[in-house]
């Protein structure tokens, strides 16, 4: 399905990962899966459907997080800021402006994009890992602003009246379809961006700003667009989560735990791939169902696993599977080491 192609650029060796033209069979198969999943609420019970809402919202968030990192080298530990903003924008549009909550989700995404723009121009002034802390500061600022506004119920949060009025028969399938749609959107956006020309160039040189600039890739603009997509996407998911849970609280909506889940999912599955977050979300759910009752131990296990994988198997589970089954996928992970070797 993929081919490896070695290329040389100014004596620097690197490999470019190239996906084949649309694999029709897989496309059709994927479509069938989506249709089958879309019909799910008609034959499955509410508890299972609700669980799948959790699953798809997390999968979507993980894809967006992974897109930012894999496509533009942006490591964010502040996506909870956009999740929270999405939740509160939904409340604003559905409860204050009386727009249908399912339509308000779109406004929440727009709200996320609008906030992402100034946020990006601030955090991009920071370099490397400090950029990550910068994204966290932005999330903290958003949380504190929301928590200090009396109308939103402050720290104790607020109930989404419009979502409550929908009734279970409408709300559960509706939020399910939105959750599924958000996951499909996240995967589709990631797929098309990674396939695009800029995507290929950026993937090959994502850890080398200088090489990217010399290749005429406007790194700053690409990063900006990616950050905005990430912000809009996470705000959209935040809005869906708000409908799903009926209640928004600053401490929960803006919780750093979101980032913990996203990092765990992406890292375990495999950063920079589409398959990785899917595998990661499944593993995360298995872990959550079995160990979340142990409270703190659950987070300790998540943290330790993320550390182990990052240090000793940075390609994640998907990378491992690929190496065992199809050697040609591996150059995607290997090229970064090639670049370092060439610099020595």
């Amino acid at each position, binding site marked *: 399905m993929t081919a490896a192609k070695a290329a040389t650029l100014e*004596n620097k*060796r690197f490999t470019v990962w190239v996906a084949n033209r649309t694999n029709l069979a897989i496309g059709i198969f994927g479509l069938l899966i989506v249709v089958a999943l879309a019909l799910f609420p008609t034959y499955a019970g509410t508890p299972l459907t609700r669980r799948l809402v959790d699953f798809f919202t997390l999968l979507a968030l993980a894809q967006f997080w992974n897109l930012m990192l894999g496509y533009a080298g942006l490591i964010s530990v502040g996506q909870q800021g956009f999740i929270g903003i999405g939740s509160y924008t939904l409340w604003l549009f559905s409860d204050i402006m009386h727009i249908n909550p399912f339509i308000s989700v779109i406004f929440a995404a727009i709200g996320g994009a609008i906030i992402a723009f100034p946020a990006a121009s601030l955090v991009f002034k920071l370099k490397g890992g400090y950029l990550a802390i910068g994204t966290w500061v932005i999330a903290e600022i958003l949380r504190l602003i929301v928590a200090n506004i009396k109308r939103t119920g402050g720290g104790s949060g607020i109930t989404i009246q419009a979502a409550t009025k929908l009734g279970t028969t409408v709300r559960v399938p509706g939020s399910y379809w939105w959750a599924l749609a958000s996951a499909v959107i996240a995967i589709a956006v990631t797929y098309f961006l990674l396939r695009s020309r800029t995507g290929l160039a950026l993937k090959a040189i994502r850890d080398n700003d200088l090489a990217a600039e010399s290749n005429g890739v406007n790194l700053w603009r690409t990063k900006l667009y990616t950050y905005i997509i990430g912000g809009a996407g996470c705000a959209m998911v935040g809005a869906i989560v708000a409908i799903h849970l009926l209640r928004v609280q600053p401490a929960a909506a803006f919780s750093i735990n979101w980032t913990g889940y996203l990092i765990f999912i992406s890292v375990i599955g495999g950063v920079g791939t589409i398959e990785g977050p899917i595998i990661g979300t499944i593993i995360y759910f298995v872990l959550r169902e079995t160990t979340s009752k142990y409270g703190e131990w659950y987070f300790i296990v998540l943290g330790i696993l993320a550390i182990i994988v990052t240090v000793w198997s940075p390609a994640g589970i998907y990378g491992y599977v690929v190496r065992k089954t199809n050697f040609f996928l591996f150059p995607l992970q*290997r090229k970064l*080491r*090639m670049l370092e*070797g*060439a610099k*020595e």
Partner: protein
Amino acid sequence: MSLLEFENVNVYYEDFQALYDLNFKVEEGEIFACIGANGAGKSTMLKTVAGALVPRRGRILFDGQPIDHMPTYKRVEIGISSVPEGRRVFPSLTVHENLLIGAYRNRKGPWTTDTIYELFPLLVPLRKRQAAGLSGGEQQALAIGRALMANPRLILMDEVSLGLAPVVIKRIYDAFPTLLNNGTTILVVEQDVQHVMTVAGHVACFLEGRIKLEGRPSELTNEQITAAYFGV
């Protein structure tokens, strides 16, 4: 026993092989020059001696002891020090501090900051200046001085003449006999054949990861060297 010995050394960058079955010996007290075009493997060989790269196959012996898995910093302790490609002086440190870093391992020997300033008087007025502000020639003198501060038995010099004016290159090569007199063996890598041939006791010409030609400069003709250099 030779000071440095390569035994069938193969070095790779990932799956790209850079050195093929390299065999040669450097005797104590000589100047051994490696010449060759860009990408011929000379610098790779030097990095392997310094410890930045590890051979996949083969051995490197220093004074009879295998060193190919010894960490870089320990090689300085046993007497191998480097003048790296691009000089790599510490830009935020002063000239004097750069020299002191060279003596980090406290090896005993003739070289101290005083003797370095004697060898390169141009550094004396610059002692308290940040190395970042130095000219190319001054940085190169500093890089050599810094490497000598380790009191090495073997000094590795990578492209010391690169980007320098001929008069500066001459001044640097003029210092080589002083190094030899102080018991330091020199392994030098150069693209510029002209200068190095005048001082070298032994020349090895690299081509595509192999030694194409080896011998004393006096025994080699210009035609032989040109042929080996360009691989024609």
